[in-house]
């Protein structure tokens, strides 16, 4: 049974393709980033609001042809999907995409970060070594897969904001 937030459907629509902005195509490698969001018992969650924030393929934030911010919501199978470009490494950080989740039963927003590979990165290194792998997306045809487990077995590491 669902309790709020009854986040309006329209708010979660139309902002999940970051590859085109005001008719301009973002430079770089277009990728699809998708994944499934599940709770303690493994059940996929419908209508989780997912926001992302990332650099573009040249390491610029909020560039004229790439705003770096996007939003979508999971479908009935718990799946979210973004079209974006692979971000560049910026100032000592590995390439990464910031995630923010909003959902009923989440008293506060949850923040996590998707990486493309393991390596030296101060934000990845802040996570206990045994759990770092959990933040690395899987390469799939056309993009990357990043599943998020809110709680329980193989729980995704989340950051204090």
């Amino acid at each position: 049974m669902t309790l709020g937030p009854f986040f309006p459907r329209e708010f979660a629509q139309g902002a999940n393709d970051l590859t085109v902005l005001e008719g301009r195509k973002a430079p770089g490698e277009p990728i699809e980033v998708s994944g499934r969001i599940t709770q303690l018992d493994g059940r996929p969650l419908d209508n989780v609001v997912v926001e992302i924030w990332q650099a573009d393929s040249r390491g610029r934030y909020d560039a004229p042809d790439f705003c770096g911010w996007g939003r979508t919501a999971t479908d009935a199978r718990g799946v979210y999907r973004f079209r974006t470009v692979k971000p560049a490494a910026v100032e000592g950080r590995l390439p990464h995409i910031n995630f923010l989740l909003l959902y009923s039963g989440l008293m506060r927003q949850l923040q996590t970060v998707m990486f493309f590979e393991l390596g030296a990165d101060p934000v990845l290194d802040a996570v206990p070594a045994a759990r770092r792998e959990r933040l690395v997306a899987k390469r799939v045809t056309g993009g990357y897969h990043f599943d998020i487990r809110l709680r329980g077995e193989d729980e995704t590491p989340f950051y204090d904001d």
Partner: protein
Amino acid sequence: MLPHRDPATQPEGVVAGYAQTASRWPAEPLVRRPQTRTELGAPAPHRRLAPARGDLAGHGAKRAAGQLIHLRARVVDEDGAPVAGALVEVWHCNAAGKYIHPNDTNDAPADPHFYGAARLVAGDSGLVELRTIKPGAYPVPDTRGWWRPPHIHFSVWGRVWLSRLVTQMFFPGEPLNETDYILNAIRDPAARSRSLARLMPTERGPANALVYEYQLVVRGRGATPSLP
């Protein structure tokens, strides 16, 4: 460098009485991370999201049912400075306690003249204003008599990625405020009081609407608590 959010200003993650929280809030402690350019970067969501509906109450034959209210919400940063141009999303149920959302199973009537969602842009003083109707209370399904008090949802962007604030505004003096599991998940009474709007003297507003003022403090010691 932004100071970390003070736990005293925030709700508990797992709330007794709100069953879903125990399946969804992480069991592992949240990880503290250094703040680099990305966490302190400034997303510009208004490049993707257009403003929508500045008035939810309507007029004449198309007036929504319910008590007319005029909301004045001010977005300020951790230093108390107004966040000019901040994007603010607002949503709430109708006067009978029904949301426009398809997932709302509450057996209450929809209002053909009410669409409970707006997206506003703050002016130079950080102010957004919304003419709407006071939302109703509603029962939470599958609980023993938990009713949500009237409340209005807000989603706001501060200056940087870490300043995102999503919360609920409550009305002062509502008896259901005392028993609401969500509002009372904020333990600190001072922080909890910041989730309440203030009713302004009636002679200061439009003759037919009650004026409520509210502050959205995105972070800091006096932060408005996050709520789902």
